[in-house]
């Protein structure tokens, strides 16, 4: 129980800050919708605007970066804070330490993924516009899956890069490289490999390109593949943690 508390205490500031930033970004996008949509020629519907700005646009970029920030704080970073000796002297296995870190982090990622839906559902009626709540929740599920793999990758890098800031930079650079690889190279022909597209639905058969809404069931096969890959990355991070000297 207390390990959960320790992990929460170590991550709560980052989590609360991330949640505030993402909520603020989504709120600004929604509050400025009238002006922004009006400038487009022809003016675009609210649902399309939300998709462009939130689920495929700035909010998704912010979400990805904030997930990287949430994944910081492995045992290696504890070493730079000078507390790793105390932690490793506790009668707790490294696997349990890693599992606690992963569960707390993924819970925070999931909350972050559902925040845009909460802001949309709460704020849209106030401004006299409507966004289908079911759509918001479906995108939240897709973001949770995408956030999970970004978190897993950043967690893995956090076990090999010592400083917290360096691990954030390394994770960010890896994400940029991945994004370039799947958008510029021959891989762009395979949108299923692009988890950013999985999150937004862009070029995916489950997104209606006219209404910008998800139709039919969620792509469970893709989501499962993404989650399995994330589990593999986290298992690798755990293995490296077992082998490492602290």
């Amino acid at each position: 129980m207390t390990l959960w508390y320790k992990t929460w205490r170590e991550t709560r500031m980052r989590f609360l800050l991330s949640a505030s930033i993402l909520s603020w970004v989504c709120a600004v996008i929604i509050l400025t919708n009238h002006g922004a949509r009006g400038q487009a020629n022809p003016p675009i519907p609210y649902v399309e605007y939300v998709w462009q700005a939130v689920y495929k646009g700035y909010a998704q970029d912010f979400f990805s970066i904030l997930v990287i920030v949430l994944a910081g704080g492995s045992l290696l970073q504890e070493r730079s804070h000078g507390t790793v000796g105390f932690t490793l002297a506790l009668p707790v296995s490294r696997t349990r330490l890693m599992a606690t870190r992963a569960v707390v982090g993924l819970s925070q990622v999931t909350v972050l993924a559902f925040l845009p839906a909460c802001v949309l559902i709460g704020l849209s009626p106030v401004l006299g516009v409507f966004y289908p709540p079911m759509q918001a929740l479906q995108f939240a599920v897709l973001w949770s899956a995408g956030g999970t793999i970004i978190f897993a990758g950043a967690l893995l890098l956090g076990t090999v890069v010592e400083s917290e800031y360096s691990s954030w930079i390394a994770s960010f650079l890896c994400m940029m490289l991945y994004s370039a690889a799947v958008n510029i190279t021959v891989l762009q022909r395979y949108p299923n490999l692009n988890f950013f597209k999985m999150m937004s639905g862009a070029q995916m058969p489950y997104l209606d390109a006219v209404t910008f809404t998800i139709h039919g069931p969620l792509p469970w096969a893709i989501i499962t593949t993404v989650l399995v890959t994330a589990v593999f990355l986290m298992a690798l991070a755990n293995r490296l943690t077992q082998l490492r000297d602290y």
Partner: protein
Amino acid sequence: MICEPVIETFGLSKSYGGFEAAKDLTFQVLGPRITGFLGRNGAGKSSTIKMLLGMIRPTSGTATVLGHRIDDAKQSLEIRRKVAYVGEDKGLYAYMTVEQLIWFTRSFYPDWRPEIEKRLLEEYQLPPRRKVKALSKGMRTKLALLLALSRRPALMILDEPTEGLDPVSIEDLLRTITSITADGTSVFFSSHQLNEVERIADAVLMIDRGKLVLNFAMDELRENYRRVTVGFDRSAPSIDLHLPGIERVRSDGRQLSVLASRNSDAIVEWARRCSATSIDTQPVSLREIFLDTVQMGPEATSSR
């Protein structure tokens, strides 16, 4: 008092790339008593301690702590259940308050003793609601000791416990260390402060450049270790290095200085046979042995 081994190492070695932090360490630490682990900065003390606690993996060799093997994950957990460790940097979670950290640590040890916790909290005058980051280094050391002692550990391992402390805090700490063996707790502490080790240790292990160079009981030092200085009216003859008890010999023209761990009478007898003009036998301090050992290097020393 029956002394039983609390730590046993068998050829324990650790390399970082080409650098050997610990080389083929084989020794026993007996309990319940205080054993000082001496060595210069970078001699390999912390690496050895970290291997014993499962924080780093030995390159070769193995060890047991309280009968549990360090290279077995389950047994390593058992070691950490029974051993209290206070690290060199006293790194505690800076964001927690004193009472939060006590609550956190207590949850891992079912045999936690609240009465010891309460007594030490008062004795050390630790403010329960103050954050760890706001504590001085001396206070942090006291808090680390409270966390360690409230569990009534079978073995306490301290890595450079007095590092960075003021003289009053050092005095308090040494008094605490001395008192805990009365409850049956063994203490293994690393230091390069010779006077501290000499004051409180019952036994001493000395390592230099990763190698064990000396291993003796302090009583043995006081009773048997002698420096025999022999003068001649000619160049000093070479001494038979196979005489039992000779640890080191230094020749300086007409004078020979012999450090003996025992058998100093035989060395005196040898000097007389060689027509020495002066023979002086003096007890040796830990400081002398240490300096002699580290200045000459581990290759010139036989570990005992």
